């Protein structure tokens, strides 16, 4: 075998230019496919993280009628026992109870349909880190005019103007947007942060205030300390109305939710929606939820299915349904799915580029070496061994292209992972209109790298069928002519 490998290796070095062209076609196709796939998967991860992990949860436990008709009458009983059962199930990371229904919110002349969500503040914070999303800095018009009067550089002032009306939950996010170097960060405390500080605090137990999402607050032109009017329909047709003081603004990653969400303490929201029942025979009050949102540890498709099954067994209640995020967020799942399909089509095109590059080489290689092959066969070499040598050559070319394609993609994947591309202009608007934050992160190295290697190797095997058949059919006397 060693001799065949030597012959194959020397053969690919015979026509260096051709080998270089073929290796380049594999390299570029692999490189582009990996980068494209990485951005695609990274965006999905980000979408899932901003929508699922940070809000709705991978699994939801609901009333069985809720998926068909998402009204408050199809709510599920709030029970610490259910929470405990869910929590003690294998692969469960966290569970939070939520009561979330639509209402109408109004402030000043602005009115908008919103999603009023009741949460247990400390539990919600454990799962979604909501407290960290409280807006601490806001570049309002007045804040910006004060900042522009300071002795900041003109370049920085220009950058700040572009960020007008942006909100930030921490200093670092603002500094990142400004692309400020570490050494100049210290000057920013007096010039920028002190002038754009924004007051807000997280909900406490039995709080009757609310947290309002950033984009929604801008639409309603409401600030912390203001009072919001809400009106809606409660359980069993009861009317829901209330005045709620805004305790803080929260910046939600997902733009759609950021334009929709208002958080209140669970009990407050249950009172608002009349989502409770007082037993006739006792003083016990049964309270209701729309859902138990559950996050899990292992998130593969199989793990999600298995955990769903386990929960179903543990809860053992026909009135309860467990849905995964693809069922409860069909729109997102479909968006990801259709985008994934178009991405796979692009990958298919790149694979065709690889296939034709290699096929062209293999055709030339076998045609121009026909006589040489005839000599080898005349000397006593078996045709199948000749086929093996040619196949080894193609694998060498494929491996070299793959190797450099993978190596070339690593810095870009790393850069995209740690510093995602922030889209601007119309593309950014398009993303936001679709309900996604306009950033493009890459996915961490994973299965998709292995898939690339496997696909390219399968392509090599497939295109080798033709030359190997040609070799097997080769007549020595014809080859020697």
């Amino acid at each position, binding site marked *: 075998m060693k001799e065949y490998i030597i*012959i194959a290796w020397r053969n690919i*070095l015979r026509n260096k230019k051709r080998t270089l062209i073929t290796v380049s076609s594999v390299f570029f196709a692999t490189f582009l496919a990996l980068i494209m796939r990485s951005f695609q998967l990274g965006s999905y991860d980000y979408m899932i993280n901003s929508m699922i992990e940070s809000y709705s949860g991978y699994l939801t436990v609901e009333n069985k009628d809720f998926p068909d008709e998402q009204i408050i009458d199809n709510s599920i009983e709030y029970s610490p026992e259910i929470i405990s059962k869910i929590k003690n199930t294998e692969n469960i990371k966290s569970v939070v109870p939520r009561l979330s229904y639509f209402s109408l919110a109004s402030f000043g002349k602005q009115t908008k349909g919103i999603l009023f969500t009741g949460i247990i503040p400390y539990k919600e914070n454990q799962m979604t880190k909501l407290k960290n999303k409280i807006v601490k800095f806001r570049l309002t018009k007045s804040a910006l005019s004060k900042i522009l009067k300071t002795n900041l550089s003109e370049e920085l002032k220009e950058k700040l103007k572009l960020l007008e009306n942006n909100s930030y939950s921490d200093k670092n996010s603002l500094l990142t947007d400004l692309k400020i170097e570490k050494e100049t960060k210290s000057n920013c405390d007096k010039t920028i942060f002190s002038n754009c500080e924004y007051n807000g605090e997280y909900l406490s137990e039995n709080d009757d205030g609310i947290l309002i999402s950033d984009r929604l607050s801008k639409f309603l032109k409401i600030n912390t300390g203001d009072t919001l009017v809400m009106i809606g329909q409660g359980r069993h047709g009861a009317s829901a109305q209330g005045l709620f003081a805004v305790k803080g603004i929260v910046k939600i990653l997902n733009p759609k939710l950021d334009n929709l969400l208002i958080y209140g303490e669970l009990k407050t929201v249950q009172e608002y929606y009349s989502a409770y029942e007082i037993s006739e025979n006792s003083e016990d009050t049964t309270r209701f939820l729309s859902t138990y949102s559950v996050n899990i540890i292992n998130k593969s498709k199989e793990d999600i299915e298995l955990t769903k099954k386990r929960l179903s067994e543990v809860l053992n209640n026909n009135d309860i349904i467990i849905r995964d995020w693809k069922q409860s967020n069909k729109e997102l799942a479909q968006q990801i799915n259709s985008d994934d399909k178009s991405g796979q089509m692009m990958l298919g095109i790149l694979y065709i580029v690889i296939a034709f590059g290699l096929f062209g080489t293999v055709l030339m290689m076998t045609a121009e070496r026909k*006589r*040489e092959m005839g000599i080898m066969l005349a000397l006593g070499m078996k045709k199948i061994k000749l086929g093996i040598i040619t196949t080894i050559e193609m694998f060498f070319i494929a491996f070299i292209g793959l190797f450099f394609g993978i190596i070339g993609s690593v810095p870009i994947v790393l850069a995209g992972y740690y510093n995602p591309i922030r889209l601007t202009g119309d593309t950014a608007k398009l993303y936001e209109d679709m309900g996604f934050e306009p950033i493009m992160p890459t996915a961490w190295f994973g299965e998709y790298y292995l898939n690339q290697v496997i696909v390219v190797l399968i392509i090599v095997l497939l295109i080798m069928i033709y030359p190997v058949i040609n070799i097997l059919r080769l007549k020595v*006397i014809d080859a*020697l002519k």
Partner: protein
Amino acid sequence: MEIIKVKNLNKIYKEGEIEVHAVRGIDLSFEQGEFAAIVGPSGSGKTTFLNMLGGLDSPTSGEIIINETNIGDLKPSSLTDFRMNNIGFVFQAYNLIPVLTARENVEFVMHLQGKSKKERETRAIELLEAVGLGDRINSRPGKLSGGQQQRVAIARALASKPKFILADEPTANLDSESTNNLLDIMEKLNKEENITFIFSTHDNRVVKRARRVITVDDGKIVKIIENEK
């Protein structure tokens, strides 16, 4: 001792509707240790005859018996093995494997025969020294002259210890000096080691040295001359 026996050998090619009789009813035999030349004008059928002797081409009819084996009865795979173990080839265009060195080219057939690395190396060096290329064992064909390449080809043909060597126009691309050198080597191997050489040629320098000259024309043997040596 007779090592090759050819009985009523015919080869007909079809070129469209036209049948071309390349070889017509040749009956011939070769003894061990022969130094024979098959001569004739271009298109006379000498190369076709040689190819059939070497099992590279199959006859339309007739038999070729080598060491009591009718090679027409062999399956393609067995024929390949038979060729490897019994017949050595020297081609007009040398036909060395360009990516292998002189030594590796000579070792190639022994490798196919499954010989050990040590045995291969020792014999390859011995053979290359025998053809006067002891100092060029690690040169690739591209770095050797035509005469040197043909000497490597002879060493390669001898490597498998064949019963006989078929040489198709071995001197056609060589100058006089290289031709004489090559013929000296082949004559020496023939005399000292009793190796059978059968050439197809129209080079008079080869014909003069051959002990039997078989003249072929229009696919038939027209004359056989035994030279006194």
